[in-house]
């Protein structure tokens, strides 16, 4: 009894599957491989060749051979394989007819089914059917086939250090928290692995709240921007800049920071850019600045640093470009 019913169920399911396949079959034909010579070229011949063939090449475009199709026209390539929405020849022909850029500009436009065909042809990779020959003659497919083995052998000789630029879940959360607390996050110099954190519009009453999140991101922070903010010496003391191994730039310009804050910069040994313009920096800071051996650029306009201080800075750090303002 049980057995019989299961057979019944099976046959029922089977017929269902069969029906299902039957229903699906039209869409299978729609995505069948389109042949350029057979399906596409006749359409182009009728609608496009009038202005784009051997006799006439409007906008420097010729469409009568695969070679010329690939070359494109004045405005560059006319199709991008697999991307009809990026392909000029599909875009322009599918515009509304009143559009200034509509193609063809003369004669009958493409019908809906012809457009569909063109779109699918591009979706399938815009193949002309001559690809194999091409690579054999021009690019030398033999060498191309060889390449993988060369790569794998050279891979054996290389010790590739794995490094992932993606943020960990923890780092992501920290970023979001920092943003929520009101600091501004940007990529540092468009380097995907590092960030620049700006405190310009930050409420420093929340500084102790944000510190633990900064610490989570310590490897990721390339620049800390305190410029034109309410940062004070106390905050610099709390930051412990020495804990940020990739910190390359610190901007403190136009703030109330003074020598007692500057001393905490000395631990940021990777620092290359330091902007102290319009701060209370004076002679007392020189010995801390000298500790910054990686420094490349130092901005000291409108500080209390004297000419003598600059001389000793230049002597200790001969490679640093020191800017003192002045028009």
């Amino acid at each position, binding site marked *: 009894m049980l057995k019989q019913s299961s057979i019944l169920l099976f046959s029922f399911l089977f017929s269902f599957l069969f029906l299902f396949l039957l229903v699906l079959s039209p869409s299978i034909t729609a995505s069948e491989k389109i042949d350029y010579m057979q399906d596409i070229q006749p359409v182009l011949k009728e609608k496009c060749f009038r202005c784009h063939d051997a006799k006439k090449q409007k906008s420097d475009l010729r469409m009568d051979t695969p070679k010329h199709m690939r070359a494109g026209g004045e405005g560059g390539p006319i199709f991008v394989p697999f991307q009809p929405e990026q392909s000029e020849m599909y875009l322009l022909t599918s515009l509304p007819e009143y559009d200034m850029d509509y193609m063809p500009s003369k004669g009958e436009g493409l019908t809906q089914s012809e457009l569909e065909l063109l779109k699918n042809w591009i979706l399938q990779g815009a193949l002309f059917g001559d690809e194999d020959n091409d690579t054999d003659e021009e690019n030398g497919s033999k060498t191309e086939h060889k390449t993988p083995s060369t790569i794998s052998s050279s891979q054996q000789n290389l010790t590739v250090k794995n490094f992932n630029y993606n943020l960990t879940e923890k780092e*992501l959360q920290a*970023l*979001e928290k920092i943003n929520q607390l009101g600091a501004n996050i940007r*990529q540092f*110099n*468009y380097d995907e692995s590092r960030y620049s954190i700006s405190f310009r519009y930050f409420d420093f009453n929340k500084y102790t709240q944000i510190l633990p999140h900064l610490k989570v991101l310590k490897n990721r922070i390339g620049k800390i921007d305190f410029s034109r903010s309410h940062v004070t010496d106390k905050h610099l003391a709390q930051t412990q800049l020495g804990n940020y191994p990739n910190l390359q730039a610190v901007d403190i310009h136009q703030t109330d920071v003074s020598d007692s804050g500057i001393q905490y910069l000395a631990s940021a040994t990777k620092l290359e850019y330091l902007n102290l313009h319009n701060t209370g920096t004076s002679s007392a800071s020189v010995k801390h600045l000298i500790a910054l051996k990686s420094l490349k650029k130092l901005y000291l*306009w409108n500080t209390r640093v004297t000419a003598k201080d600059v001389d000793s800075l230049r002597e200790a750090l001969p490679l640093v470009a020191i800017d003192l303002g002045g*028009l």
Partner: protein
Amino acid sequence: MKNLLGELTDRRQLVKQIAKGFLGVSALNCALPTKAQAIGAQAIGAQPTGALSKHGKVAKSYYSGPRAKNVIYLYMSGGMSHIDTFDLKQGREVQGPTQATKTNITGLYLSEHLPGLAKQMDKLAIINSMFSNQGAHEEGRYFMHSSYTKRGTIVHPGLGPWLVKYSGRSNLNLPGVIHIGNTNPGSTQGFLEQRYAPLLIGDPEAGLQNSQRNKNLSAKEFSDIYALTKQLNQTFAKRYSVGKVNAYSDMYDDALKLMQSSDLDAFTLNREPKKIRDAYGKNAFGQGCLLARRLVERDVRFVEVTLGGWDTHTNNFDRVPENAHILDQAMSTLLIDLNRRGMLEETLVVLTTEFGRTPNINKNEGRDHSPTAFSSVLAGGGIQGGRFYGKSDEDGKFVTENKVTVPDFNATIAYALGLPLDKVEYSPSGRPFRIADKGQAVVSLFG
């Protein structure tokens, strides 16, 4: 409340986008398949590994590569004569009476009319192979600002609105894009949302007009009226929560935020010492450049300042020196002023125009339009200065080396800003557009 929520989601998206590296190098690499990858690989690709590897060497020089955050865009309206400014043709008949002057880079020369900029040559990358196919003012300006040719069916956005669209405002109290003097064709928000529209400051000295509360109204009365307006609008806003309606109320909120902000101070040029004001030049363009610096200091993303009067069909050799003097004083002071504040690192200064002028001197002692070769200048934001890029022929009529088309030039600006060149934005009619059309960034200018 609704708006507040909207902003919060925006911020979250921002973090996500940053996290995904949306503005990052990888996107750029896809965008610039040929030139960029070849030349740019060592410039940008090498940096992260060098900086992150524990045993690795320390980078030789302070980061080279794109790093612009904001832009000051100086537009020379009318078509600046390249032959009399940045692309000298000494010893050729076409040069006319214009003489050369030494720059602070040995062997490089600029026009005698640019003595200030000559001293800042180490910061300048001068492109002498600019090429446009638009020879009329309106069309040329439109093309230069938007990378697309002007047509009747659509308005394309300018670089400023693109920048704010893709990378947001840093200071929510001020508009992201501000134009000083003039809003040029092709520089508006175009088909992008209204909130990316530039704010126009006609006269830099007059500052921002109508930004003060009417004296007859107390602060309390004002906020009561505003609250009442919001209340009355509530049902309508709820029923028609569509882009254009929201854009209008967003604009209203932004204006209020600006009125109450201390950043309004940026527009008051009197806060600057007289010495600095004089150094920029006692004219609208000079003061406009000073205002631009004050705005960028407060995180405005894109400031465009326009200097007109370059359409020298007549008396070229009297008018170019006059105009060049205004430009020279303002731009050289701007570069010094940005640099000593440490701002030139992340501020890209652009100087451009719609086209150049003919080598041939016409019977009115003038030069006519010539878009087939002209000059533009880039400085700051990661650009390596002290050099010329590209060449025009011996008379300055056609480009002979390293042609930079208008879309290429704009792609270079976008590249400096880390914007995605390959990202497609659809206009309301469903047409795809990109920041710089199909332009390719001149990546070698950054290294």
